[in-house]
């Protein structure tokens, strides 16, 4: 059931946005996006996102896939992440988008934001892809000054036994109607 996409492809150029990935953010000039051949979790390169101004607005390195292969399934995006002197926060994110670019499910780890400096560790976001999903955006975000690396990412379907991490999960039914919770 679980599908893994770990592509072993050849190393190209440093100093450029990795193939298939894009930068998204308020201000591109606040960020450097490069490949890094020194800080690695696996393989020969990792991707590095560095903000070069103290109050950098949120920026992200991401890719977008068509949701067709994932609708009605639960997906997990995970990656090895390392950080250095992040004074804002960093984390992985997934946004499931429907018609009209409407957000159907979203988690950017803001509620479990990663800060400061830490060595390689695997972070993950798990979300449900509803039947009307059109596209899925996923990647690594960074806010404020600092450097974050990411490597060895996985995007896979998982069983319903794996809990979602959604920050705004749809409820299963009426909840807290007496408003006492």
């Amino acid at each position: 059931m679980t599908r893994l996409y770990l592509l072993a492809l050849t190393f190209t150029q440093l100093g450029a946005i990795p193939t298939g990935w894009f930068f998204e953010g308020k201000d591109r000039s606040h960020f450097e996006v490069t490949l890094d051949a020194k800080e690695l979790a696996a393989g020969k390169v990792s991707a590095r996102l560095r903000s070069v101004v103290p109050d950098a607005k949120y920026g992200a390195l991401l890719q977008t896939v068509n949701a067709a292969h994932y609708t009605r399934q639960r997906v997990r995006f995970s990656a090895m992440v390392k950080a250095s002197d992040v004074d804002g926060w960093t984390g992985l994110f997934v946004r499931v988008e429907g018609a009209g670019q409407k957000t159907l499910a979203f988690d950017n780890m803001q509620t479990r934001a990663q800060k400061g400096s830490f060595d390689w560790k695997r972070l993950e976001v798990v979300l449900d892809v509803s039947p009307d999903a059109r596209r899925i955006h996923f990647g690594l975000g960074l806010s404020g000054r600092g450097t974050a690396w990411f490597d060895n990412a996985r995007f896979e379907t998982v069983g319903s036994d794996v809990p979602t991490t959604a920050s705004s999960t749809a409820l299963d039914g009426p909840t807290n109607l007496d408003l006492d919770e």
Partner: protein
Amino acid sequence: MQKALTVVMGLGLSAYAANGVIPGWFVSGGGRADYVATKDTSVKKSGTSSARFTTQGKTDKYGTLMQAFNPQRYAGKRVRLSAWVKTQGATGRVDLWSRVQAANSPGDGPGIAGSLTRLPETSDWKRYEHVFDVSADGVSLQYGVGLQGPGTLWLDNVKLEVVDKNTPLSDGSPTEPVNLDFED
């Protein structure tokens, strides 16, 4: 309904007058004054020329080279927009977009159909396509290529074809993730 069309066409005509070297196409977007479109007879995918679209000066606003028309003859049909695009040093943002605007669609929104594909900041000629339905509610069918920030793009051999309803809809994004290990 008439108003939305008039706004688009009004924009088109004024931009066309300003740099009317590519018949049928015009420069639009919040940063339209910061971009220029010209014919390029040396860099092209096919035929005698391509459209070259680039910044003039420093900008962080979005500009697009686009086309817009009344989609009446496509109403109720599925269409495939395809385009060849080459990019160079587009470190801000570069995309191919399409949309069907209804009478009440906001000017800066995605419309009722169509899509947006992010393009690599530098790449050789590559073909991209969107497949979408044009409903009878559409008052303007629009498509274009855009830049936000520095860089240059070339556009050539654009096609809009009616396709069979069995042709899968396509938003231009890949169906599976790529390069998750960054080794590509």
